[in-house]
């Protein structure tokens, strides 16, 4: 019996209709494409009225197949599948064709766009007639969630899930959780102490009965899929036994080896070879830095072992591999600071009193290397004038095009702290002042009143070469004041560079492990930039915080909570539906050549030696179809993408072409 196909051409307002003659396309389909029983165009097919129209046609016209020519299937495939199901048609008997993203939005002329739309519809009709009803596979959702990254976004996600009663595994790369927020002194715009609001969350997460924390650990491998991921975590050797250590700190105190702390104190302070990153570290268990430890490097010392009463020091400790099953994964891996040395004209690393924003955070911090005193690199002189340079490495085509989002507010915060602590003159060199969240603009106004100077213009150079009286021994900021319309030279004692927030150097690598992609800049790509900001293209993997794009603390917290909410939704539902796109082998035709066995990276094809056939393990198959293309006998079928369906699609898409003559061409068909 011939199929009855319904074709629905969406105008998408003027998004499609502006470039494609939708009415003509719909008419053409009815008149020229075989088996098209109904063909309609409509303003917004995804609206409830549009869907109702399709549902009604399925019922009244007895449609057996549906083609929706609208936007990308990645946007509305679910919507139209649901409409089909509502009307009693198997959702896999619907095919979308993308005449918006792939046609109207990229075309320059109406006629070629309309022709292209026709060929895509012709292909979809040809294909849909060969589609088969399928049932989505249901997979149970493991309630345990993996959170990667123990900064504020990851902590928020962890606590939301744990408080809701679900088990969470939190993996943090550094020896302590807390992230960048632990390094800050004050947070804008309220100026509340960062540690005061962060440390309770850190200890809560550590002590929570539903949280398993692996610090000094990294995610090594992810396999499986939504609901049932298998993850492998490498817990690096601390050389300190966590079960015995009491966190007394005697080992740290007596360790004779002092090294510059390039991580937490960003090079401004020292730590020992056995150390905790900061006093409130969670867990409160030290780590031996083997590269700097005298015992590991020279085979002498063992002072920490002698000092440790519980006997927790274990020099022979090995990395531990932990394998776990989790249902969902939340990546909250944060950001890294732009290397300000990349802009040599700003003198960072060459001119002593040029600091980065993170260095200044530590200078301000009462628990920092200067106990909160704002002083120059010599460690004692208080600056009498400070310049804050915005957009260092951000909004700059040579480095990062993006706006780092937090620097304007952080610069205002720094200005306030300098004024409060030293009374120095503060100059802010900005391009645009961006203070667009709740209470941010008010904070800016407050700083205007407090007497911070604002100079609009990108700094050209920071130099110590004095040219004019009063510049000797100072750092001179050369810049165009775009409001005055002239060049200015401003001598100061201290410069703070507001370095950009950048994606983590290994973000891409981690993303690949989890099957998600990064933007060109390296931020994780969300499923939809507006409507689905914490989900990703891979089901069961969510992102939160600055790994998805530069953002401030409130936004990171909101995303952490949002990701947790999404995961909770999955857990509460209990099962997820997986696309039934899998391969299967017709054992009758299989010769047991085993070519397909090596095609599968998931080892989803097993060979039955007894019967000399290969078999697909459906639960492991991800549906890529590579084995289908490889089978010399053509007995592997990839459901929803089988040879017949794709073949029909090729025929349909070339409806207006003339087939090549001759035996060679005939053989290829």
């Amino acid at each position, binding site marked *: 019996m011939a199929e009855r196909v319904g074709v629905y051409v969406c105008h998408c307002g003027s998004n499609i209709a502006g470039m494609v003659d939708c009415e003509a396309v719909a008419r053409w389909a009815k008149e020229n494409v075989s088996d098209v029983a109904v063909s309609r165009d409509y303003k917004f097919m995804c609206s409830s009225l549009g869907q109702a129209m399709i549902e009604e046609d399925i019922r009244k016209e007895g449609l057996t197949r549906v083609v929706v020519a609208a936007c990308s299937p990645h946007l509305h495939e679910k919507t139209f599948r649901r409409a089909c199901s509502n009307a009693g048609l198997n959702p896999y008997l619907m095919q979308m064709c993308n005449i918006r993203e792939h046609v109207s939005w*990229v075309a*320059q002329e109406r006629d070629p766009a309309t*022709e292209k739309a026709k060929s895509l519809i012709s292909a979809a009709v040809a294909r849909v007639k060969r589609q088969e009803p399928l049932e989505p596979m249901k997979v149970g959702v493991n309630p345990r969630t993996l959170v990667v990254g123990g900064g504020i976004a990851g902590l928020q996600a962890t606590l939301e899930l744990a408080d809701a009663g679900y088990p969470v595994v939190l993996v943090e790369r550094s020896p302590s959780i807390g992230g960048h927020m632990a390094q800050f002194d004050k947070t804008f715009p309220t100026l509340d102490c960062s540690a005061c609001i962060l440390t309770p969350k850190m200890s809560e997460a550590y002590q929570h009965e539903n949280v398993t924390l692996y610090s000094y650990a990294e995610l090594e491998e992810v396999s499986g899929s939504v609901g049932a991921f298998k993850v492998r975590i490498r817990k690096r050797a601390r050389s300190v036994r966590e079960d015995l250590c009491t966190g007394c700190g005697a080992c740290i105190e007596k360790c004779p080896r002092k090294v510059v702390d390039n991580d937490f104190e960003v090079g401004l302070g020292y730590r020992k070879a056995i150390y905790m990153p900061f006093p409130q570290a969670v867990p409160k268990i030290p780590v031996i830095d083997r590269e700097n430890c005298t015992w590991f490097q020279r085979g002498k010392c063992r002072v920490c072992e002698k000092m440790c009463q519980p006997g927790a020091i274990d020099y022979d400790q090995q990395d531990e591999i932990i394998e776990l099953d989790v249902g969902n994964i939340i990546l909250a891996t944060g950001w890294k600071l732009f290397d300000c040395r990349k802009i040599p004209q700003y003198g960072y690393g060459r001119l002593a009193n040029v600091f980065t924003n993170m260095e200044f955070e530590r200078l301000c911090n009462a628990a920092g290397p200067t106990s909160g005193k704002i002083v120059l690199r010599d460690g004692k002189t208080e600056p009498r004038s400070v310049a804050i340079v915005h957009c260092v490495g951000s909004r700059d085509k040579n480095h990062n095009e993006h706006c780092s989002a937090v620097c304007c507010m952080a610069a205002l915060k720094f200005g306030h702290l300098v004024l409060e602590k030293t009374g120095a003159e503060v100059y802010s060199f900005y391009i645009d002042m961006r203070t667009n969240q709740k209470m941010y603009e008010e904070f800016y106004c407050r700083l205007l009143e407090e007497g911070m100077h604002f100079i609009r213009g990108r700094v050209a150079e920071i130099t110590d070469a004095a040219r004019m009286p009063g510049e000797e021994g100072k750092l001179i900021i050369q810049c165009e004041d775009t409001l005055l319309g002239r060049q200015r030279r401003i001598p100061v004692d201290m410069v703070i560079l507001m370095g950009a927030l950048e994606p983590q150097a290994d973000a891409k690598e981690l993303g690949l492990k989890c*099957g998600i*992609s990064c933007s060109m800049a390296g931020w994780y790509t969300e499923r939809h930039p507006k409507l689905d900001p914490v989900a990703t*293209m891979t089901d069961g993997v969510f992102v939160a915080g600055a790994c998805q794009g530069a953002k401030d603390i409130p936004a990171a917290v909101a995303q952490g909570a949002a990701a947790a909410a999404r995961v909770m939704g999955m857990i509460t539902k209990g099962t997820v539906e997986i696309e039934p796109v899998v391969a299967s082998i017709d054992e009758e035709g299989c010769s047991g050549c085993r070519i397909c066995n090596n095609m599968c990276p998931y080892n989803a094809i097993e060979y039955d030696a007894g019967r000399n056939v290969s078999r697909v393990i459906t639960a492991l198959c991800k549906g890529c179809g590579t084995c289908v293309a490889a089978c010399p006998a053509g007995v592997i079928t990839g459901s929803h993408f089988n040879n017949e369906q794709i073949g029909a699609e090729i025929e349909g898409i070339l409806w*207006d*072409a003339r087939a090549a*003559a001759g035996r060679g061409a*005939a053989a290829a068909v």
Partner: protein
Amino acid sequence: MSEAFEPRIVGFLCNWCSYRAADLAGISRIKHAPNVRIIRVMCSGRVDPSFVLKALALGADGVMVAGCHPGECHYIEQNYKTIRRYGMLKHTLKAFGLEDDRVRLIWASAAEGQQLAEAIDRFVQDVRRLGPLNWPRFWNEDPARLAAVEKMAAEHAEAMEVPA
């Protein structure tokens, strides 16, 4: 011909990277040539070389296969298999007497809408330069070539004679 030749090109794009790159090109309104008609497959590894031959035989002037960048395949390593098949396919095309430049393999991550659009434009231009595809007949189907071969055989009949 008064009208410029507009090649028909079939594009096989993988669901995860290149199809999304094409979506992104649309979302970003990056205009490009309308000649490439896209067929979505789950992975570039799904593209059976016979699909490409079939498209060419049915009247396509070129075929584009696009996948995730090597090392970034959604299915770990399947695009490496595409690379191998692509090499073999090019040989096959030559054996058929077709220009192997009519088939192109490109990579585009989901973030590379711009790059994909540019690659499409370049490919369309290159195929346009090649002109419409003429699938050569087998020599024994082509009267002119058959006559030429027969003539040659007649000329060399003596040499070709098999001694009794």
